[in-house]
């Protein structure tokens, strides 16, 4: 089998949570039933984000589906996320990319056999994902030279950052790979390949620029959301952050602590400053926060925060087997809902703080 099936991938650390209404809704909205929905269902906001962030739902004004999926694949391959990589690989194969081409792309790490704009977009996505350091003005100039507009560059950054989040949400609990990842190889699908490809490609809708009232983008990490102002991705990002924050499973304080730790690890002063501002609103400020960030420990942390704060740091740069081992240990100490909320928030934090670092590096916001 192709893809990342050779990557060591642990057993899933949370049981599925059946919610037929939520599952049916997601299946209707996505046009297919995904096995990961019952695992995300511990935190319904993640199911809603899965739907609202689906590429075929008119998110992109400037990008076409293949480019978006290839950026996703390049980032997921770099992060060794078997779930994300294999699922999107199967989707790309269903759109008509031959297996031979797919293997060539994989063997060359998405650096060859691609046109210039796509190659540079994949490089940019990888650099944003690694964020060591984040992409700089030279990288953006490279994308512009390749013919990509400013809007396209921002949408590429959005896709890469969403892959950063998605990879963590899949890797930390070790979500079981979708059983239909080998669907493109089934003889029925191969027989009807042109019809299947047409149907899959036909579901992708191009988005339209949006007029967004300034206050509709306000809220936590508004400076990141505004990077996509005028694009559907701004609205979807704003809604996703607010939905995550509204979830009652973990308190807001715990979520902003996760963001603060990730920002500190990435060295993004602006993202850290925003997290501290939000923590102050939750009654945690000044030297108390600094003390927590300095050593990732404090007697002021509650039971879950005592575990979440050092774990958040592990999610910034990781090896799959190692982070899954640590996640397994963590999952034994908190409930499945708390674990999935924490995994989701780690994804969100890594996404927001990498975009924050990019915005700083490029003076975008």
């Amino acid at each position, binding site marked *: 089998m192709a893809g990342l099936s050779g990557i060591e991938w642990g057993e899933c650390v949370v049981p599925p949570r059946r919610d037929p209404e939520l599952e049916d809704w997601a299946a209707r909205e996505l046009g297919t039933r995904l096995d990961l929905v019952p695992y995300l269902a511990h935190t319904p906001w993640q199911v809603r984000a899965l739907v609202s962030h689906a590429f075929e739902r008119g998110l992109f004004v400037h990008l076409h589906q293949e480019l978006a999926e290839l950026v996703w694949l390049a980032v997921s391959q770099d992060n060794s996320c078997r779930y994300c990589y294999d699922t999107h690989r199967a989707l790309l194969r269903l759109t008509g990319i031959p297996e031979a081409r797919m293997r060539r792309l994989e063997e060359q790490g998405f650096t060859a056999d691609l046109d210039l704009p796509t190659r540079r977009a994949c490089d940019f996505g990888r650099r944003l994902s690694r964020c060591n350091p984040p992409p700089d003005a030279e990288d953006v100039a490279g994308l512009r030279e390749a013919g990509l507009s400013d809007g396209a560059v921002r949408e590429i950054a959005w896709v890469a950052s969403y892959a950063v989040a998605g990879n963590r949400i899949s890797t930390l609990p070790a979500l079981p790979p979708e059983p239909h990842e080998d669907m493109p190889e089934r003889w029925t699908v191969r027989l009807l390949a042109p019809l299947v490809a047409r149907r899959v490609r036909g579901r992708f809708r191009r988005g339209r620029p949006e007029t967004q009232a300034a206050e509709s983008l306000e809220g936590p990490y508004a400076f990141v959301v505004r990077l996509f102002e005028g694009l559907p991705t701004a609205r979807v990002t704003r809604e996703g952050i607010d939905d995550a924050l509204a979830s009652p499973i973990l308190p807001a304080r715990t979520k902003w602590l996760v963001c603060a730790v990730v920002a500190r690890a990435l060295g993004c002063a602006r993202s850290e400053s925003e997290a501290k501002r939000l923590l102050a609103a939750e009654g945690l400020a000044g030297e108390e926060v600094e003390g927590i960030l300095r050593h*990732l420990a404090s007697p002021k942390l509650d039971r879950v925060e005592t575990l979440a704060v050092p774990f958040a740091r592990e999610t910034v740069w990781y090896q799959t087997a190692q982070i899954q081992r640590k996640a397994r240990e963590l999952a034994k100490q908190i409930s499945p809902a708390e674990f999935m909320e924490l995994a989701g928030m780690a994804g969100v934090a890594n996404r927001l703080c990498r975009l924050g670092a990019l915005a700083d590096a490029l003076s975008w916001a």
Partner: protein
Amino acid sequence: MGLTGALALLAALLVLAALWWRSERERRRLRDRLVSASRELQNLQTSFARFAPEEIVERVIATGVETHGERKEVTALFADIVGYTALAESVEPTVLVRILNGYFERMSRAVTDHRGHVSTFVGDGVLALFGAFEPNPWQANDAVHSALAMRREVADYSRELGARGLPRLAIGVGLHRGSGVAGLVGSRDLMQYAFVGRTVNVASRVQDLTRVHGVDILLTGAVRETLDPRFRLRPLPPAELRGVARPVPLFAVEGHPDG
């Protein structure tokens, strides 16, 4: 078209078919060579990535060896075996190599489990760096936790060796934090990703002082400045170190509540 014409057409088609087949075979051969070269490159890249940050690896592959470095703040850890010379003289070479390999395996694990990377093995010595590949604001804590893990690993390993009738091991570990330049250094024939600067030298000299003070883990004041106060430390007299203007504050590491 008469028979002659038909035969001529057939001959032309056969020639074209032969030419096409030959070109297709050549294309497949070249493609297979490209695939094979790509695989070799990928394996090389994967192996090299263990010794240098991914960005460096990709830059080397894309544009050749770079000669500039980056200034970084790192914590250096130097560890070696106490009484190594006597050990080396007391066992057969093959046994020594097996003992050393087991020791290096455990030391490496103690480093990588705490987000460091092993920069080099020199004889029985291990140089590990924390904060060299990726920025690490918690590098001091990671480095000292790594040293404590080394202590535990050596104790376990020594029990194993003792049970097999082999000499037990003891280590000395020195830690120092400071800035320096990281990059690819060496000659055309042998290069490594290294950290150049006083920090590594000071860590090495501090490690030597573990024998003088009869302790296994020593760190400098620079490490202590950013260290979790929960580490139990015992202050020692400041040391005069060659190349360092002022006496360097030293602390022996006794433990941490989390192990």
